[in-house]
C-alpha cells in the first residue's frame, strides 16, 4: 500500500490539512497577543484570558450553554438511540418512510428554517422563550445526529447476542440493558459528545428559540464579533476549542488503546 501513496497524495493531504488547521492555529496564537490589534503581533500575554473571566455576562452565557448542552445531549442521546433502534430493528411499520425522513432531514436542513419553525411552534403553543425552549430545540436537531451514529453501530451488531440472552432467560427489556446497551455503549457515548458539541456550537437555532436570560455563548460571541475581531473573543474561542479538542482526543486515544489491547489479547489467545 505504501507504494501507491504517491507524492501527489501526500502533498494534497498536507495542503488540505494546512487549509483546515491554519485559521484555527492563527486564532489561537493571536489570543496570546499582547496588543489590542489582533493582527499585529506585540508579544506574548495571557491578559485577555484574565479579561475574559472578569466578563460576567460572558461567564453567564457560558454557564447557560453548559447546562443546555448537558441536558439536551442527554435527552437527545436517549431519543436518538430509540430512533436508531426503531430504524434498524423494525424494517416495516406504518409511517416508516416519514419517520426515517424526519430523522435524516435535520442533518441537512438549513438552520434558519429549523430555528424559525421551532420558534413559531413555541409561540403558537404559548411557551415563553428561554432556557426550556432552547433545550427542546437542541434536543430535536441533535437527536437525529445521535440516531445516525448509533444506527451505524447497530447495523454491525450481532443479533445472536440478544437471542442468546433471551435463550438464557432474559426478558427483552433486561436483554437491552444487560447486553445491547453495554455493547453499543461507545457509539452511544460518542453520540452524546456529538450532541453536546452541536448544542455548544449552535448560533442560529439558539438565536431563534432563546429568550431573555438564556443567552448562550455563541449568541454572545456573535454579537461581539459583529462589532469586530477582539483578542478577548479569540481567547474565548481558544478555550472552547481546547475543551472540545481535549474531549475528542482523549476519547479517540482511549478507543485506540482499547483496540490495540484487544488486538494484542486476541493474538495472545490464538498463540496458546
Amino acid at each position, binding site marked *: 500500500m505504501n507504494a501507491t501513496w504517491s507524492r501527489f497524495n501526500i502533498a494534497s493531504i498536507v495542503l488540505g490539512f494546512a487549509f483546515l488547521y491554519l485559521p484555527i492555529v492563527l486564532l489561537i496564537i493571536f489570543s496570546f497577543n499582547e496588543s489590542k490589534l489582533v493582527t499585529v503581533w506585540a508579544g506574548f500575554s495571557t491578559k485577555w484570558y484574565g479579561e475574559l473571566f472578569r466578563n460576567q455576562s460572558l461567564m453567564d452565557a457560558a454557564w447557560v450553554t453548559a447546562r443546555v448542552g448537558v441536558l439536551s445531549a442527554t435527552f437527545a442521546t436517549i431519543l436518538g438511540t430509540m430512533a436508531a433502534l426503531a430504524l434498524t430493528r423494525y424494517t416495516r411499520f406504518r409511517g416508516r418512510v416519514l419517520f426515517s425522513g424526519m430523522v435524516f432531514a435535520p442533518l441537512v436542513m438549513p438552520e434558519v428554517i429549523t430555528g424559525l419553525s421551532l420558534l413559531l411552534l413555541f409561540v403558537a403553543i404559548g411557551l415563553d422563550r428561554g432556557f426550556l425552549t432552547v433545550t427542546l430545540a437542541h434536543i430535536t436537531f441533535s437527536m437525529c445526529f445521535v440516531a445516525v451514529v448509533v444506527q451505524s453501530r447497530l447495523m454491525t451488531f450481532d443479533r445472536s447476542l440478544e*437471542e*442468546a440472552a*433471551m435463550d438464557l432467560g432474559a426478558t427483552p427489556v433486561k436483554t437491552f440493558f444487560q447486553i445491547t446497551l453495554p455493547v453499543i455503549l461507545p457509539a452511544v457515548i460518542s453520540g452524546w459528545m456529538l450532541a453536546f458539541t452541536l448544542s455548544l456550537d449552535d448560533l442560529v437555532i439558539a438565536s431563534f428559540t432563546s429568550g431573555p436570560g438564556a443567552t448562550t455563548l455563541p449568541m454572545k460571541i456573535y454579537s461581539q464579533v459583529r462589532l469586530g475581531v477582539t483578542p478577548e473573543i479569540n481567547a474565548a474561542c481558544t478555550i472552547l476549542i481546547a475543551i472540545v479538542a481535549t474531549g475528542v482526543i482523549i476519547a479517540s486515544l482511549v478507543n485506540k488503546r482499547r483496540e490495540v489491547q484487544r488486538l494484542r489479547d486476541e493474538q495472545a489467545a490464538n498463540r496458546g
Partner: protein
Amino acid sequence: MKSLGSIRRSFSPWTDPAAKPYIVFENVTKKFGDFTAVNNLSLTIYEREFFALLGASGCGKSTLLRMLAGFDEPTSGRILLDGQDMRGIPPYRRPVNMMFQSYALFPHMSVEQNIAFGLKQEGMPKADIDKRVADMLKLVKLEQFAKRKPHQLSGGQRQRVALARSVAKRPKVLLLDEPLGALDKKLREETQFELMDLQQNLGLTFVVVTHDQEEAMTMADRIAILDKGQVMQVATPAEVYEAPVSRFVAGFVGNVNMLEGTVAERSEKTATIKGASGAEIRVENAGDATAGSTVAFAIRPEKIKVSSKKPDGAANVMEGEIYDLAYLGDMTVYHVRLADGQVVKASALNSSRITEDPLSWNDKAWISFAPDAGVVLTR
C-alpha cells in the same frame, strides 16, 4: 445379530412403539414472505437422543432449530415439548437452550459472567451460581480462564465457553447450531467426541444442526436429512448410509454409484435390473420396485471389487477399463469405464504395502459386487 453398518445399538427408543416422543414437530410450516423455509414437516425426537438435522444451506434446518428455541413461530402446525404446546411461549421461558454458531459470547462479560448469565436470570442464589459455574468450568476444562474476556480466548476455548453457558441451566434440550463449524479440522474431530461424552454424562437431549455429514454420522443417534424444507429420511447413520430411501439421500451422504435401469424380473426378494446397454444386475432386497419400473441401483464405491482378471463366482461382474485412478494412501480410488460408457467409482483399501496385481491407466479391469451390496431406489 445382523445389523447395518456393523453397529449394534442398545439405545433405540424410536423402535419401541410404547416410547413417548419428547419433541414433536407436527405438520410444521414456516414461511418468510413468499419463501417457504419449512414445508409441512413432521418429526419426533426422543429423550436423551443425540439428533442431527443434516442438509445443505437453505434447507430449513436452522429455521427448525430457531422455532424450537422460540425465535421464530411456525406459520402453521405445532411444536410439542414434553407434551406441551410451545406456541406463544417466548424464548426466555422455554426449557431449551441454544449454542449459537457464532457462539454469541457477551463481549463485555468474563467467561464466568457469561456462564452465570442464564442462572442469574433464573434468580438462583449467589452461592449456588458460583458452585454451578465452577462445575461448568471444570466440565469444559477452562478453570484457569474464568476471569478472561471472550476476545482473550482461542476459537476452541470460546466454543467450550459457549457450550458451558448453554448447559449451565441444565436445559431439557440443548440446541446446537453448527457447533463445530468455526473450528479447524483437527480440533473439530476432537471436539466431536467431547460433545458425545458430555451428552452421555449429562443425559441431555441434543438437537444439532450441521451441513457436515461426517460430523452428523460421528455424533448422532439418528439423522434427519432435509431438503427444501422437507424431511427426506430419518434414520441411524448406518441406515442412512447403507439403506438410503431415495436417490437424493444416497447422493447426499457419501459417494455413490447410481446405475439406472428397469426391473426386468421380480421375485419375492430378488430382482434383475437391466441397464440401457443391456447389462444385467442381479440384486437382493429389491424393496418396493415392481417389474417394469425404472429404478436406480445405488452402490457405494467400497462395495465394488476391482480386479485385472475376471473373478469367479461373483453374482455381478462387468468388464471395463481403468479410466482414472487416485492413490490416496490408505486406499485407491478407481474410475472404471464400462462397456456402455458409464464410469463407475470403486475404492480398494490398501491393506498391504505391496500389491501383487497393480492396475494402471487404460488397463482392462473387471468390477464385481454381491447382490446385496447396494440398494434399489425407486424415488
